């Protein structure tokens, strides 16, 4: 039997990060360690601070206290100690962000191909033929019809827009991807196919992912490890199956037991 590699290098680390909008609103003194190639799920109810935490980790909001450290190939980078230029370059080149609403992550005014090519162009790709080939390749990978490369995202359905957003994010093969409810707002059958596709891509590309979701089924399918949040604090962490099959904390037990089964 192949044993899992338990000694993988750390990629992203949060050391006691806090960002409070009011007492119990936001997140407080959170420690996280994300290893390379790992999918970490953050679950919790609405208002538990999951999205705030994601914004802190993704360099979009400065924490009141604590550090977010990214282990790049050049060494440790304290996300909020480096300049804004570096931080934005990191987000552009090495990281990716998948928004809950694809309309936030896409440029709706330009074609699907331009959307996929944008990050490549930002990295300096200046060959139209190659940009187009990459666009078609990635549309195929996310199960979109490559012949629709010149269509505007507006003409795509919600599920297709979400696929397009994923293609646009992954085209530069980022080290680390942040996903905020990637299947929110989609119907169940579309969700299932999207999850299936995401799982394949994550495995193929060896992505490290921080996934925020309120949907435990999504967490079960994608995440290796889970963090349960409530009122801005982490109440339980552990392997996904362990947490979902044998929840220890009262709140996690409530969360797991309230999943509807048809």
């Amino acid at each position, binding site marked *: 039997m192949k044993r899992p590699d338990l000694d993988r290098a750390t990629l992203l680390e949060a050391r006691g990060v806090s960002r409070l909008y009011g007492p119990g609103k936001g997140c407080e003194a959170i420690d996280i360690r994300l290893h390379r190639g790992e999918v970490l799920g953050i679950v919790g109810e609405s208002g538990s601070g999951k999205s705030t935490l994601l914004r802190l980790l993704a360099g979009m909001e400065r924490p009141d206290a604590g550090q977010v450290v990214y282990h790049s190939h050049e060494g440790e980078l304290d996300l909020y100690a480096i300049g804004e230029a570096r931080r934005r370059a990191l987000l552009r080149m090495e990281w990716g962000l998948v928004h809950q609403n694809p309309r936030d992550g896409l440029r709706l005014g*330009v*074609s699907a191909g331009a959307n996929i090519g944008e990050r490549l*162009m930002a990295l300096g790709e200046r060959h139209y033929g190659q940009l187009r080939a990459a666009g078609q390749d990635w549309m195929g990978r996310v199960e979109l019809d490559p012949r629709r490369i010149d269509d505007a995202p507006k003409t795509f359905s919600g599920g297709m827009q979400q696929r397009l957003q994923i293609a646009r994010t992954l085209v530069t093969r980022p080290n680390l991807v942040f996903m905020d409810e990637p299947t929110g707002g989609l119907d169940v059958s579309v969700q299932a196919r999207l999850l299936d596709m995401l799982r394949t891509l994550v495995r193929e590309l060896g992505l490290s992912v921080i996934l925020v979701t309120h949907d435990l089924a999504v967490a079960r399918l994608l995440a290796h490890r889970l963090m349960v949040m409530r009122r801005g604090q982490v109440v339980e962490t552990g392997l996904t199956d362990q947490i979902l099959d044998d929840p220890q904390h009262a709140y996690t037990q409530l969360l797991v037991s309230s999943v509807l089964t048809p």
Partner: protein
Amino acid sequence: MTASDPTASGYNFAYLDEQTKRMIRRGLLKAVAIPGYQVPFGGREMPMPYGWGTGGMQLTASVLGQDDVLKVIDQGADDTTNAVSIRAFFERVAGVTTTTATGEADVIQTRHRIPEQPLRQGQLLIFQVPIPEPLRFIEPSEEETRLMHALEEYGVMHVKLYEDIARHGHIATTYAYPVKVDGRYVTDPSPIPKFDNPKLHMNEALMLFGAGREKRLYAIPPYTRVESLDFEDHPFEVQEWDDPCAICGARDTFLDEVITDDRGGRMFVCSDTDYCQSRTEEVA
């Protein structure tokens, strides 16, 4: 010049007061020091609506000297409304000599063209600019575009060109074609046709750009590298015409299409009237 100027008494020389001119000149110095960078300035009300060249006029007023010879063109022509009225304005409030000959002018204020005759060192070309921000069409926030300039995040400029090729098979942007100045700032060369873009590169004259409504000015100093953005497999190209100019027969100029009757009759003539005229005089 003092207020006792015989022309149009009651106005300071060249309409603007000296403090305003001083402020604009300081902005211009900064603009020249950082080629392509948009410098904000305190725009003044000019006796003309926005969109008619108030930005260019304020720059002209600030740099104009008593002995300078002024030329004003609009779409290359010296005899269109905009050109005629701005020229008359400066004749009245500054009493300067004006000309239509490109070679004789010290200061040329222009809308939408660079003269065909190559400019020489010491000449000033002043552009009237409607929207100075090349990133505006893709990013509506001014705060964001400034940050993008500061961090050189120019990937989105190519998104527009990509979209052109995807839709039309070639880069269909024909005017206000974005350029990179001195390898650093992406700049909108005002709505000149892309035919004129190569003239920006290593030009001997100092080129100043003024946007009155947006209150921004920027500059391309003499002998500065200016590259038009493009793709490796879709290089930058300028417009070409099948016919020569119907008046002077030039084949290497920017031509305007002129409708001559209501039965589809048309002809192509040089948009630079001074150049066209000097060529016809040479031939005659």
